[in-house]
């Protein structure tokens, strides 16, 4: 097995990881929201007063994407496991 020791490609892998963290979290949040959104629209059509609570429910899964983003930010800015070899 080839050992990857090139600093540039290690940094690249970090960036790919960061991208995956945010991107996949986004997909997950979207999938969560789709069902809730459809249901909320249905309820609001029947009872407009539910809009606020519906919005609240719909925005709940949004936190997921922020988690993904937090991981990305840590990867890109705060986490330097290869600090010895990587100099971005």
């Amino acid at each position, binding site marked *: 097995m080839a050992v990857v020791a090139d600093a540039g490609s290690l940094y690249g892998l970090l960036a790919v990881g960061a991208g995956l963290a945010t991107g996949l979290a986004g997909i997950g949040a979207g999938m969560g929201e789709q069902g809730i959104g459809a249901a909320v629209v249905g309820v609001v059509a029947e009872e407009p007063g539910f*809009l*606020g*609570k519906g*919005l*609240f429910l719909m*925005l*709940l899964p*949004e*936190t997921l994407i*922020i*988690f993904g*983003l*937090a991981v990305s*930010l840590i990867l*890109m*800015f*705060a986490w330097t496991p290869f600090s010895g070899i990587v100099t971005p």
Partner: protein
Amino acid sequence: MSRVVVAGSKNVISPVVEKLHELRMLHIVNYNGSQPQFEMGKPIGKAKEYSEDLIKLRSVTRYLELNKKFPDKAYPESQVLSEMDNLLNNVGADVTVTYERIVAIDAEVKSKQDQIKVLTPLAVLPLPLESYYGYDSLATFVGTAATPVDADVARVSPVNEVYSGSAKNATFVAVFVPADKAGEVSSVLSEHGFSEISVPRLEGNVDSAIATLESSIKSLEGEKVPLQKKLADMKKQYEDLMLATDEYLSMQTRKTEAPLRFAETANAFVIDGYVPADQFGRLKSELESAAGGKLEVSLIADNEADELAEKGEDIPTQMDNPSLVKPYELVTRMFAIPEYKEFDPSLLIFVFFPIMFGMILGDIGYGVMAFLTMVLLKKKFKTPGWQQLINVVQISSVWAVIFGIFFGEIFGPLGLWGKVMGHLHEHELEAVKEAGLYFGEGVFGSLGRIGFWPGIDIFPLDRLASNAVLLLIGTSIIIGIIHCSVGSILGIKTELAYGEKKHAYFEKLPVMLIQVFFGLLVLGLVMGQMMLVIASAIVILVAMVMLVMGPEGPMGLAHLPFYVSNLISYLRLLAIGLASVGLAFAANQLAFYVVMPMLSGGATDSAEFTIPAIIAGLVVLLAVHFINFLLGILSPFMHPLRLHYVEMFTKFYSNHGGGVEYSPFGHVRRFLKA
């Protein structure tokens, strides 16, 4: 709010209802028929006539497609009354007749168009239209067939006439056979994929029939145009008067049907309700004078009122905020009306929401544009709900400008700010980058860069620089801790107001401690202060023990990840801001460093750009900035809203199920003069 009971003689019910309607003070609690000695009240006066008139009027307004709108002028009641008869009968009948004629014309045109659709393919058959119908001894089949039918028809019915022709990828056939062979021929035809079309009963050849139909469609359409214009004119002429009449009739209906909400005996009526405590005296004196003494308005003692509330009667809430905070009641109302004893969070939204909005958008250019857009919208949308919403965004966009100054952004970082306010020189920039203290390169004109600590000049902060990102992560979390803690403190207060000490001290308090000391713990880790870390950890452990002792027992601990994730959720303040800055930055780069040089044949100096390249670049620039501007109003609005609804309100608000808004019996006149 004071709980009151109004009891009086039935003789005076009309003047009392009239007075109540005019005062708009009493929030009526509907009588639910639970007491055997009282009955539900019956409508008074001309209730039936009013509601019939209202239905008549509503159907006319529907024909005219009148919508609720902001009134252009108000009418005195006497004018409405004097014109109502004419409006309902003459104008109403005229509108109805005109509208029905238009509907009939539409139906006729539709049927003629259908006939044309059927006739067009028949032109391929060499027969005049009258030969398709009117036979006693002949059966006719006209339609499309998939395969030739002549041979098979001749087999079952030697006497026959078959015509065929093809048009539009289909074969049309007309088959005439003796009536007694109809059954057999029909089954033979169906084997050939025959599907029948019904020929309209017209005369002459097909082309002239189509021409006749088309000309009559044209004349019908011609008849429709003046009718539509007539309706439009009538709408213009009567719109306000009709809406005023609608308002008058609705008011009358509500008044005459009000007794349905009262309790009644043979000779008396009783109204239950709430009135703001300071207005009880006025209500009492006004009602008593209106009823000439045949009425008693009494106040229910607080402890009895509390008992009623415990039995499930909702005490209405009237939100009372200074005019600057008023628009934010909209945000509160969208979630839930506060209960009577609950804290009204509008004030908190007023404090936090615009700051969050500003922090996310944080751009002078976008802020000013948002403000101006709202000024325009304010003229267009005049209903109170819209006005409130627009005010909310307007106040927020001022904060966006303020943050824009801190972030040094005018339509994105670096570009315009550098031109207007200047930026660091090459060598200064190098020095800052060398020291790892790069927070941006803009300056405040001759003031240079400004910072809290000597040597570290943070502002104007370039949000895309990595130091700035780390700084903003911290800031977002700190805002989160403050925001959530305020929520928790209010939670403790609310629980105490409801007398739930255990919930206050063992459910809300530990959550607050955990939030604050979680923040301090992370701060300690970052700064390397182990004492702070250990102290915070101890407090968090104590808080966790308190949670276990709380009303939910060990299950209370299960909520811990929720509270921690609440804090992380505030990262969106940074994240969405970054997305917006990124897009603005990309727009500028794309236009000035990609599109313009590329279309000028690789020129690098702006003086060498060709005119078409500059135009194309500007189009790209405007398009991307416009999209970013729209997103830049939408997401900074939605996300702080969510931070309030999800992260903050869950700590204290609406845990007891939401309240009922104080809506006094009466009517706010819009089209009618008082």
